[in-house]
């Protein structure tokens, strides 16, 4: 299920793509300060990825914290559908203020077995900061393991290509 929480802010800026990406493997630690776009691009206010799914967000494993960089405007939160990932299932709760993602929390984490739980405990915190830091970033391309031409269709690179296609 590839449908996950991500925004593509297609910049009106000449020839450059602003891509805002976040994902579910995140713990609610502090958001990198002021990494936002400053309202660039077609802002999607208060819309946080997949609409509320099966996740019981009322029992977060760790409480969500609002961002130290209060972006102004009311904050909206939405819990995403529980998704399968490499080692189990998790759901994500995303808080958006204005056009900016201010927090990503993981209220639900169910793993397949104790080994996976260990892997998840390590993997999620280590990878959290990178994902949040992608907020507001601009990229020209994506480097990754070679995708098949079928997988390309749903890739971030394909989305970038569409911005400039002639």
């Amino acid at each position, binding site marked *: 299920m590839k449908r996950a929480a991500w925004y593509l802010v297609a910049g009106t800026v000449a*020839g450059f793509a602003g891509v805002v990406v976040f994902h579910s493997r995140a713990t609610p630690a502090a958001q990198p300060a002021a990494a936002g*776009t400053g309202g660039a691009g077609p802002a999607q206010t208060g819309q946080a990825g997949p609409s509320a799914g099966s996740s019981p967000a009322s029992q977060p494993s760790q409480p969500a914290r609002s961002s130290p960089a209060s972006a102004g405007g009311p904050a909206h939160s939405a819990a995403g559908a529980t998704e399968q990932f490499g080692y189990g299932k998790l759901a994500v709760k995303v808080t958006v203020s204005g056009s900016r993602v201010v927090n990503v929390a993981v209220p639900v984490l169910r793993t397949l077995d104790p080994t996976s739980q260990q892997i998840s405990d390590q993997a999620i915190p280590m990878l959290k900061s990178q994902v949040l*830091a992608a907020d507001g970033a601009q990229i020209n391309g994506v*480097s990754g*393991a070679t995708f098949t031409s079928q997988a390309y269709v749903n890739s971030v690179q394909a989305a970038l290509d569409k911005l400039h296609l002639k």
Partner: protein
Amino acid sequence: MINRRMPAPTDPGQEGPPLVTYAETAMGTVFSLTLVPGGLPGRGLRSVLGAACATLHRADAVFSTWDRQSPVSRLRRGEALLGDLPPEVAEVAAECQAARRASGGWFDPWAMPGGFDPTGLVKGWAVERALAVLRRSGIAAAMVNGGGDLAAFGSPAPGRRWRVGIRHPWRADALAGIIEVGAAVATSGCYERGPHLIDPATGLASGRAASATVTGPSLAMADALATAVAVGGDDALAAVGRVGGYAAYLIRPDGSETGTGGITFVS
């Protein structure tokens, strides 16, 4: 260790020439060619793109290990010697030798099941060939992405460098980091096409990395070294750290990260 600094606020009013992107299917994946056309008119642009894509299809025809009649397949079966084959094969074989040495043996096309298999290098090599066509044509700047391995020249906008996101190994729609690229970046891992990375020492699939990224001046070499780090994990990373001009970034299977230094993350 890895140098991460906070991303600068984006500038929505940034001026720059319009980019043109063209996507071409070849070698079982999709190549994205992103250009700053400069003064090149539309017709010239199409002709240049056609010539660049022709090099990709030529590389596909010569190096396909799926096509049993391709020159590299004949070499693998021992039906032909290097000297009997198109000169590109010897050129790639020489680059493979250099990469095998540089990687401390973690990249070894001669140790693959079924015989000589340059797949871990040849896509990066093909990207460089296509990029050279664009460079010679007078295009101001370009970046070619061969299914996740990228090479570039020039600037996408005045004062800017090409920015490349590193795909998150467990999420197709997320990034593990963003770097600025002067010449080439390659990433290797098993999250797209399953466990195809073979340890030359054992002949078995390796699981020592979730994602391995290498930057440097040549994409053929970076591609091979990324394969090496994906196979050899921390041990191969140490080898790449000794190769002048190249840097590596490894995400281990447990999600922890390490790097050789030399890669500056903008986020």
